[in-house]
């Protein structure tokens, strides 16, 4: 089973758009939206949800005011300042460590498990998709990322598919770390801007840290062709495969507004060939075909 994870470091470089385009020109694979914090792939895939499952998080402290004697021990113990002088637990601040629950002399604090999201198995016009929605202000997105990836793998095995295309989260923190472990290779979508380059370097560093091979493509390359050239050189110097570039083209936004990929929206668009070349490059790369 192969898994390509699409990352960018910086948001807004076109990671999700490109994932959708790849979905339009490939087959026999499962789509996985691992950007659970701000999932957007479904807006282009229009998924028909077949199975819906709650995502349970950790516990949350709740003070039972009937038993509470307001001794204040919990306030002293809580390192997250989640309990204020009125002996109410602030749900947003509560880390779920349970220290107050275990040490309350009156056993006045309950610790119910909270549901902090949902995940889905869906059908789309491009095949099966696994995606999720994390509740607002929830932590543990890394855990949900790991879950949707596991479920994608199971689904691919069950359907005899040999590949997973995963739309990853931005950044280099918890959810990104959870999205790269055990994958075949990473596609880093960057843009020719100082921020794009800065963030790309951090993702390449992270990929090295976790020993997953990375490849790079530049989106909106013509916004600064000189920077694009510099990226190409920089990436090659880092011994990372440079796959190619895609021009800045309003066709992406226009097709997004219609809920379509550019392959469906505009049969004439010359940008399609750029996308196709990158996809062919990925499929032929040693990174995706290692033993």
């Amino acid at each position, binding site marked *: 089973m192969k898994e390509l994870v699409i990352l960018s470091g910086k948001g807004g470089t076109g990671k999700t758009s490109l994932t959708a385009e790849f979905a339009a020109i490939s087959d026999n694979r499962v789509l996985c939206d691992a950007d659970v914090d701000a999932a957007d792939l479904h807006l282009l895939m229009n998924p028909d949800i077949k199975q819906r499952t709650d995502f349970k998080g950790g*516990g949350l402290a709740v003070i039972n005011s009937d038993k509470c004697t307001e001794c204040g021990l919990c306030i002293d113990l809580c390192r997250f300042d989640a309990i204020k002088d009125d002996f109410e637990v602030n749900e947003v601040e509560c880390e779920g460590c349970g*220290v107050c629950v275990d040490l309350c002399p009156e056993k006045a604090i309950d610790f119910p498990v909270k549901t902090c999201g949902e995940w889905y198995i869906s059908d789309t016009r491009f095949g099966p998709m696994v995606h999720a929605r994390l509740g*607002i*202000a929830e932590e543990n*997105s890394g855990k949900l990322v790991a879950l949707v990836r596991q479920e994608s793998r199971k689904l691919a095995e069950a359907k005899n598919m040999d590949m997973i295309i995963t739309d990853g989260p931005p950044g280099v923190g918890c959810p990104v770390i959870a999205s790269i472990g055990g994958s075949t290779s990473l596609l880093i979508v960057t843009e020719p801007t100082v*921020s794009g380059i*800065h963030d790309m370097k951090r993702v390449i560093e992270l990929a090295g840290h976790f020993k997953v091979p990375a490849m790079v493509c530049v989106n909106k390359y013509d*916004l600064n062709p000189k920077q694009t050239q510099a990226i190409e050189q920089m990436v090659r110097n880092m011994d990372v495969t440079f796959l190619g570039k895609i021009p800045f083209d309003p066709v992406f936004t226009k097709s*997004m*507004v219609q809920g379509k990929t550019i392959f469906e929206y505009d049969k004439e668009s010359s940008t399609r060939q750029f996308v196709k070349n990158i996809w062919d490059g990925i499929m032929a790369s040693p990174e995706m075909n290692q033993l």
Partner: protein
Amino acid sequence: MIISIASGKGGTGKTTVATNMAVSLGSDVQLLDCDVEEPNAHLFMNPEIDKMETAYTLIPEIDEDKCTFCKKCAEICRFKAIAVVSKTVLTFPELCHSCGGCVVVCPENAVTEAKRELGVVEQGSSGKVKFVHGRLRVGEAMSPPLIKKVRSHIRPDIINIIDAPPGTSCPVIAAMKDTDFVLMVTEPTPFGLHDLTLGVEAVKLLNIPCGLVINRSDIGNKDVWDYAEKENLPILLEIPFDRRIAEAYSRGKMIVDEMPEWKDKFIELYNHIKNLVKREKN
């Protein structure tokens, strides 16, 4: 005054708005880049860094001479960062949330706290604008404690502008909470609007007044204006797509440096926010 600049979706122009507003205001202003996973504001501000500190979080350390292997520390740990097997206590620092439960519960005082490096916090200035940012160590998963360290430099006597990370989960909340105003930067596309609605939900949860900047306002469609009207969210600035802006951004240049006519618009944006905050407080 503390203003956080957030977006839901990444790449909508949060950093552009934060840096240009800070530079336009000129003095008595501080920019705090809390997007510690991918801090970018420094690429535009080019601050002179005069102070750098390593930020740590606390993790347990077990004194096995005192330990009686009673397992109380492992039992209280909801994050499974401690395991006791036969006569060994194992700790898993990367799972630890630094709640301190193990320290409190140990009957032998055998648990003390050591440090795990989260990243660095750098302080400096760019012209008269004060600058602070955090840089998460690559490979480190937990950003909220580092965001807290960056925020500890907030100064009540001046204007503090926080560049928040994208998304709606814990790091964003850590950056937005206890601020006077959240400025959401969006773009009028289906992705932009979808992530904006999630971001606004998070702001509502924190009960902070909020307004919008619509970047690349002439692409996409009009749905975001309808949404703003429905939600009663003031649109404080619209920035049309301009190749000159995109090009300046790509080189790490500020809009206000390349097109000085924008300076007044960013000052006006701040004044607008100041009035909204004042109204809210009355």
